[in-house]
């Protein structure tokens, strides 16, 4: 079974530029998550989708971050414009459902450096 795929793996941009990350979850997984992991910290949930609907985006900086999951499969996370403090690893995860018993499967992440 293929795991969660993310691209690109690395991205370097200048502040005020825009960037987009792509995630393909495990086939059949209805729930998709985007996390931000700043160096020295644990992952922080940015947004959670159930199929193509948003379940939780309370920690998403909506003035600059946006995410979509068209057709309930792939998802993109966009930052526009980027700030220096957005430098982090962006992790995508998926799970079969939303209950605590469902394991979240993580992708390898995209490491973003904003200069």
């Amino acid at each position, binding site marked *: 079974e293929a*795991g*969660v795929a993310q691209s690109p793996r690395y991205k370097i941009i200048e502040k005020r530029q825009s960037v987009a990350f792509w995630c393909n979850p495990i086939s059949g997984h209805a*729930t998709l998550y985007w996390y931000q992991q700043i160096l*020295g*910290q*644990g*992952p*922080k*949930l940015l947004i*959670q989708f159930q199929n193509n609907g948003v*379940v*939780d985006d309370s920690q998403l900086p909506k003035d600059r971050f946006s995410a979509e999951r068209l057709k309930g499969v792939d998802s993109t996370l966009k930052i526009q414009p980027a700030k220096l403090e957005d430098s982090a690893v962006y*992790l995508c*995860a998926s*799970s079969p*459902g*939303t*209950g*605590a*018993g*469902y*394991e*979240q499967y*993580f*992708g*390898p*992440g995209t490491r973003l450096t904003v200069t």
Partner: protein
Amino acid sequence: AQSVTQLDSQVPVFEEAPVELRCNYSSSVSVYLFWYVQYPNQGLQLLLKYLSGSTLVESINGFEAEFNKSQTSFHLRKPSVHISDTAEYFCAVVTGGGNKLTFGTGTQLKVEL
């Protein structure tokens, strides 16, 4: 709101020695507890979890963790570590009916010969 504290940012240990990685949580409601491991250049993987039942849970590679409600802890232990256990370990908690994970800051386990 719940929080997770991992007091040790780094834990160096010699191969075949025992290790304990500490995790404490704060929550006034029932919790589900997890340990994730991140090997170098890889994604996070679930190591073990406590949802209900026996408070002692084990992983397939020899790690175990015990849910202690009175001490609000979920420490991770292994009686004899191997070089291949070198990785970063994250404790996480879910409260309520959903599965929103709140992670600790992680503990880097470095196993040396």
